[in-house]
């Protein structure tokens, strides 16, 4: 316990100073959320590269939570779905159902190139399409995998902070 306390004292603040707020516009549906976005993450068929980056976007260094975004356990609690990966055939229906389970107003964020346009998996036999083919996408975050900064940047567009 003392060791932990010493560590807390020596390490101090890990979070990097917040970069400038994103220049581009907020998706229209996000305005009603007014600075609080609960996020449910859906892995629709990702290689888990994107997940690692999402994990670090919410880690202490990038601290996505400081902008009012928070990961939650149920789509009922969520305002936005963070979908990663190409949508495989097995995940197409669950993705639709997850989208249906979110109370309005709701947003979908496609994270990573796979989610945007099938990326490296385009044309593979098990792929049902990009996220946009299954549910309406409000925001795309490019990259394979996208850097945590890009993810945080995308989240800030939603929260507007």
């Amino acid at each position: 316990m003392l060791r932990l306390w010493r560590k807390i004292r020596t390490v101090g603040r890990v979070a990097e100073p917040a970069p400038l707020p994103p220049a581009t516009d907020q998706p229209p549906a996000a305005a009603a959320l007014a600075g609080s976005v609960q996020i449910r993450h859906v892995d629709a068929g990702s290689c888990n590269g994107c997940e690692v980056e999402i994990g670090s976007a919410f880690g202490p260094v990038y601290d996505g939570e400081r902008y009012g975004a928070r990961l939650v356990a149920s789509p009922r609690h969520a305002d936005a779905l963070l979908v990663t990966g190409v949508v495989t055939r097995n995940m197409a229906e669950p993705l639709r159902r997850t989208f249906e389970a979110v109370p309005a107003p709701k947003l979908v964020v496609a994270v990573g190139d796979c989610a945007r346009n099938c990326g490296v998996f385009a044309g593979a036999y098990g792929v049902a399409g990009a996220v946009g083919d299954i549910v309406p996408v409000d925001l795309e975050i490019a990259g394979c995998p996208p850097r945590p900064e890009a993810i945080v940047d995308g989240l800030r567009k939603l929260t507007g902070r």
Partner: protein
Amino acid sequence: MNLAATGLACAVAIGVLTALAALVVPARSAVVGVGTVLSGAAAMLAGCAAMSGVSFVVALPALLPLSGMLFTLDALGGLFVAVTGAVAVAVGVYGISYTRAPDLRARGVQAVLPLFVVAMVLVPAAASAGAFLVCWELMALFSLLLVVAEHRRRPEVASAGRWYAVMTHLGFLSVLIGLMVFVARAGDDSFSALRDSARHLSPLVAGVVFVLALLGFASKAGIVPLHAWLPRAHPEAPSHVSALMSAAMVNLGVYGLVRVGFDLLGGGPVWWWLLVLVLGAVSAVYGILQAAMSTDLKRLLGQSTTENMGLVLVGVGAAGLFASSGNRTLAGLALVAALLHVVGHAAFKTLLFLAAGSVLHATGTRDLDELGGLRPVMPVTTAAFGLGALAASALPPGTAFVSEWLLLQALIHGLPASGVAAAVAMPVAVAAVALTAGLAVATFVKAFGVGFLAKPRSAAAAGAHESPVTMLAGMGIAAVACAVLALAPAVVLPGIEAAARVAGDPAVSGAVTLRLTGVTGALSPVLLGLALIVAVVALAGVVRVVATHRVRREARLWDCGGGPMSPRMEYTATSFAEPLQRVFDDVVQPELDVDVTHHEESRYLVRAVEYRRKVPDRIERRLYQPVLRFVATCGERGRVLATGSVHRYLGYGFYTVCGLLLLLAVTR
């Protein structure tokens, strides 16, 4: 003839006539139902009159050889007569359509029900040991006949009946011996003579009388360790009989204890009441623990009866402790709490058993693991059981909440009155009552949540239908009683205080706010309920105004995006109780059985896993089985004597008579 006498006479006459009518009239169910209601209502009137001070004495010397029968009604007896009558009213209405089932329509079964009510009404009205014992035995016999009503269809019923028959008669024997010892000292069997002679009784004799009576009455009230019959007989009896037994008959155990302990013996030394208190505390915790593990709806209710009677005995024991240390205010408070709990328990247990009967009627099962999803198909029964569960779990605004509050007040204020014994007993009693309250909440959340909400877990539950209107009306009567007792206990408190006069002074006053007299303490169940309702309504209004999306959207359950969820994925009563069972592993010692079936090809592939859990009654196992085994061995040995030869049997008789004559010759 005053109101009490007329009422009681009417109750008896109507009951007997109904029984006779049931034997001849074809539309038995309706006749018996109406007759029971009328008889119960008359008894209620008589009881209320007695509580308000009207009294009478009738001597019927011709009815019983040697001693005759003597009846009277005082406030204490009146309370129990009124409670029994009220339960009979609800049960009678309910029975009109409930007893249409083939097994229950039988002439004998129908005729016995009103007689059972009459016997129960007469027990608290008896004013001599002879009359008391006769009525007590009649009550036991009639209830036994009703318990075994469905023995043709289900073999368990017969076993339950045997347990009940043996234990209730052992209890009777104990009371009989106790009272006879008492009567032998007094020289006359009327209660007034007993009361007068109590002062001259040596402590040893008084102790023997009290302990014997306590044993007998505790066995009737289902107190640990004499409770074994209760979770057997109550669930196996038809549900309206379960209600009568659980809500009215067990009370008479308490009545007997109060009558003999406080009234006839005039209180006693500390150890008597410590014994009562400890028995009560153990029963309360043990009963509710068993109920928390139970997956059988009616068995659970039966075990909760043990719990509630335990709480009542805690109150009675505390009252005795206070009375023996001369503090009549606290003694009155504790006894009022105990008696209020008796009344409240009668109301909610009637409601719960009738609702359980309605479920059984509609689904044919009492296994909670197979129930569920009854809310859409049986809305009234669900509401009734919900109200009963709230009343039973000591949550505001519920019925048991008020009486448990009073009980805890009595225990809390016990400090100034305490000797060393009380200083040990009170904290333990407080802890037991608190633990019981906590476990009761979990138990009734399980019973209501698993049994009635969510999705049906079997075809039987899915095909359920609401019960006929008289059954619902019977539940409605009990529900109204629960609500009145929960919100306005002041309605019944004057009567209860009059009854509690045997031990102490009146202790509670006030209509809206219950105020304790003599010690500080106030509680207002009405204001509490009102505050809750106002808060809920105000909140609903605020949310309506503030929220921008006005419509509720229907959506499928969140099933993690996979296929639809089947009822097999739901939590069952067994799984609900599993964490609690682990917590109390050492106490309940459940028997687990896990069977794993493997695939033929590989031992590493599992085809099916079967999990079974049984929570045996440990006390029963440790205490009863050795006794039963011993009795069985004696029986085996005894068979040597019974060879079947008539000569030999005549010889036994001859030798016995000779032996007795010799004995007399020597001793005289």
